[in-house]
């Protein structure tokens, strides 16, 4: 008789556990069978004390086993239900999109500039600033870019309207222009500071140029200058290699080519290997063209990206700031921010940067 009752109890308990659909009904089942006050199994166990020794021996183990089995089944079901519920059935449908966190966006050039500053700061470079309206002296003369020389033609310049008669009569000391590069800050900084030092100068520059997908009337550069007793071209190579590897987050290959800027000697152009087609160019290859990925929109199939002008500071530049060129040497470089951003983010048109179009800005 007792056996039969136990069997029924067991079947009823296990069945209702099996059929329960949520945590609430599961808890009800637990209370019904195992509840401390009034649970059916609890009651049987509690009633044991009133039974004979024989009956105790008979029913005791059975009831204990049943309690254990129900407990285990309950726990298993509980586990099942909690996972299941998390996925599907509790109040919030978690397949819904997350609530939008609304925050603004920095301009991509700000982001790039900041990254560049961080990298150079980690290499002990200070960050300095300079004016966008410059004098002819700082923008050209002091940088060994002579008047009435074709070398100056490389910088198409916006000149400011000034009272010509005052300029001619030297009442106005200086002819003003919109700086064509950040290099004048080299002069301004050296006039005020003694070496050794290393600085970078981010800033806006201007060129009198027809605009198209890769030309703008205003754009941004980062100038670099490091001067000391023994700063060499090999040092430059180290710093710049380090810089590009961190900027592009991989061990990017660089290539130096001879170039000409009047304020450096030797003068160099720095190329980095094309980030996009990441093609390894055999450096000594005579069949460069054949190897190149002609379809690459970034490097136009050359495998290299022209990215920076650089060189060792020209002795005449040191003379212009009254340093003795025999005492000091150093390197300088200039980098186009737009160019870096265009390479890094695959931006096809330089005119997007100043478009003010938030469909562009919000992507960064």
């Amino acid at each position: 008789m007792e056996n039969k009752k136990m069997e029924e109890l067991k079947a009823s308990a296990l069945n209702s556990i099996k059929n329960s659909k949520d945590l609430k009904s599961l808890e009800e089942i637990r209370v019904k069978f195992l509840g401390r006050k009034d649970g059916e199994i609890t009651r049987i166990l509690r009633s044991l004390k009133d039974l004979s020794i024989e009956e105790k021996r008979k029913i005791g183990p059975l009831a204990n086993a049943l309690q254990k089995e129900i407990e285990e089944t309950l726990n298993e079901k509980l586990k099942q239900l909690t996972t299941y519920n998390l996925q599907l059935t509790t109040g919030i449908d978690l397949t819904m999109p997350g609530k939008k966190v609304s925050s603004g966006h920095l301009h991509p050039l700000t982001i790039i500039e900041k990254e560049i500053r961080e990298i150079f700061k980690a290499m002990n470079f200070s960050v300095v600033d300079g004016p966008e309206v410059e004098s002819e002296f700082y923008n050209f003369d002091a940088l060994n870019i002579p008047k009435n020389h074709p070398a100056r033609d490389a910088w198409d310049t916006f000149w400011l309207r000034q009272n010509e008669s005052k300029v001619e009569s030297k009442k106005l000391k200086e002819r003003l222009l919109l700086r064509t590069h950040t290099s004048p800050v080299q002069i301004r900084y050296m006039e005020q500071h003694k070496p050794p030092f290393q600085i970078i100068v981010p800033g806006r520059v201007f060129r009198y140029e027809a605009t198209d997908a890769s030309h703008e009337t205003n754009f941004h550069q980062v100038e670099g200058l490091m001067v000391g007793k023994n700063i060499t071209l090999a040092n430059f190579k180290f710093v710049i290699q380090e810089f590009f590897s961190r900027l592009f987050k991989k061990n990017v290959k660089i290539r130096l080519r001879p170039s000409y800027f009047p304020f450096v000697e030797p003068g160099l152009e720095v190329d980095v290997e094309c980030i996009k087609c990441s093609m390894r160019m055999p450096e000594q290859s005579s069949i460069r063209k054949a190897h190149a990925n002609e379809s690459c929109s970034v490097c136009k199939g050359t495998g290299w990206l022209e990215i920076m002008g650089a060189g060792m500071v020209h002795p005449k530049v040191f003379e212009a700031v009254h340093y003795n060129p025999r005492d000091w040497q150093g390197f300088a470089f200039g980098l186009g921010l737009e160019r870096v951003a265009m390479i890094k983010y695959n931006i096809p048109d330089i005119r997007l940067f100043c478009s003010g179009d938030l469909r562009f800005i919000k992507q960064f």
Partner: protein
Amino acid sequence: MKFSFNLIKKLAPGKYDKALLVEKLNLHSFEAVDAGGDVLEVSVPPNRFSDAASHLGLAREASVIFGVKLDDPAAQAIKFDHKDQGIFRVNIKDKDLCKRYLAAYAAEVKVGPSPEWMKNVLETCGLRPINNVVDIMNYVMLETGQPLHAFDADKVSGGLVARRAKNKESIITIDNQDFELDNNILVIADAKNVLAIAGIKGGKLSEISAKTKRILVEAANFDGTAIYKASAALKLKTDASVRFSHNLSPELARIGMFRTLSLLKELAGAEIHPPVDVYPKKQKSDILRIDADEINNLIGAEFKIKEIAAILEKLGFKKKAAGKFETPLIRPDIENIEDVAEEVARFEGFNNLKPVAPSVALGVAQEEEIILLKDRIRNVAVSAGFDEIYSYSLVSEEETKTAPAEIFGVSDAVELANPMSRQVAVLRNNLASGLAKALKENLRFFEEVKIFEIGRIFGKTKNGVKETNILGVALSGKNAVLELKGFIDYLFRKLGIVDYFLPELNLKNKLVKLNESLRIETGDHHVLGYLGTLEGMRGAVLEIDLEKLLKTVDEEKEYEPLSKYPSIIRDISILVDDSARVGDILDLIQRVSPKWVDDVDLIDWYQDEKLGENKKSLTFRIVFQADDRTLTDSEVDKEMAAINKAIIEKFDAELR
């Protein structure tokens, strides 16, 4: 500049093809591209026109790169047909503008077509073959880099004079253009006429024709600056003027002359006379002390003096003594050890240079304060949901007449002397009008637009230009100006500025509404900027001078002890006349209960027809707090009664 690969290879014969030459020129000399066929496009830098803007120059580079011999035709001996120079005079009147003048007389010239090989070189380089005499002049220019000119000797009366043009003097050039000259322009003239604009273009009068029999060949050297200016003044750029503008070596004139004469003899059957050489101030060759250590110290390499000497000798340097080298006359660009170091380093290969970490004393890397301030403001603005834009510094004049720019002292806009168009003719004197424009444009794509820009604005001053860093912020929406007010509060709190005022702007302008605009002032009444509701659209804008803000930023923040006693919060809703100012009501509440009112905020307001005409409903939340104990409800009730009474009396308010 275009070059013929075949000619370079003829001058520096070796086992290399065009692709390899292009590759190597790029790595060791100049930027070069294969322009198809025989054509090489090479960018010769401005300091290398004397020695390298020529086939011989590129062949010399190739000879060093590939370790092959230079086969220099100009080095061959020349045999003159006559010992005398012929009867003509050469006179340099202006020795500053004309540094050297070689002229040679050649007779029995047979004008006819040039040989195919010469025509090919000319065509590769973009020149049209004309006849053998003219072609030889052009060819020798391409080969040696020295511009040359030939006069029909029978059209020249007397001799050749290099002199400044007289004012209003004119010339008709070989291409039938009429130029009026002036005193700054050098000409080549005879006793009667101007025969050529020196270094730029020859004249019609003495042009070589099919009938020409006797010629005068000119190989001269002119001052680069003078030619550059004359060419700009006449708006006349020629192959010759471009070359001379770069300051060629006078030595090139000699090289070019001898090469021309030997080709005239060879290809036009000319009987050649030795040239007259007027050379008032001979170019001296430089002797440079060349020390391997000095070069290595600059480059950071370990070149041996033997390697250095080998490269230099190939480039035409002559060893004079141990460590002393004479620089080639055609290399005026070589002035010091840095220049020599470049020659060595580029031929040894920049890419073979091992990177070396610089060893410097440890210093603290610093960023200028204004740069840091800009960073912080950007971060604050972005955290408040604003997107950053950049806009152009060059704008139209109209755009400089909208904002109240006098607040920053930049109302007088800076104009360009050479604008590209009227739309971009002046420097911006505000960021606000650009932001307003961007606001409008972006509202086509977004329901709500919140933007900011940090940039420079400019204004004319008595003796120059004022340039200052500005923050501009703009956003769309009905009560945008209040949101901006909130933004200022947020920004200033983040920057540690607690003491500021927002009095009325009171400046007439087209950008913001006069009755909905405020000035931003520091505690000691320095004007930082302004904000206001935009005219003509739902939105508001603010501008703040960052240089001034920088001086105001006070980093001092001090901990205030947290109150140990709970506060009591009461809301009060009132109906008042539209003219009642919320700021005054807030002040009043504080004043009525100065001891216990910890904070008052306007938490809701609206206007509705149902409220009655010119009425608005305001709800304030007042926080009561005592420092020393827990306030009781009855104490606060008493305070509230006093506040209510004061508001009703002062503002004719109705409690709701």
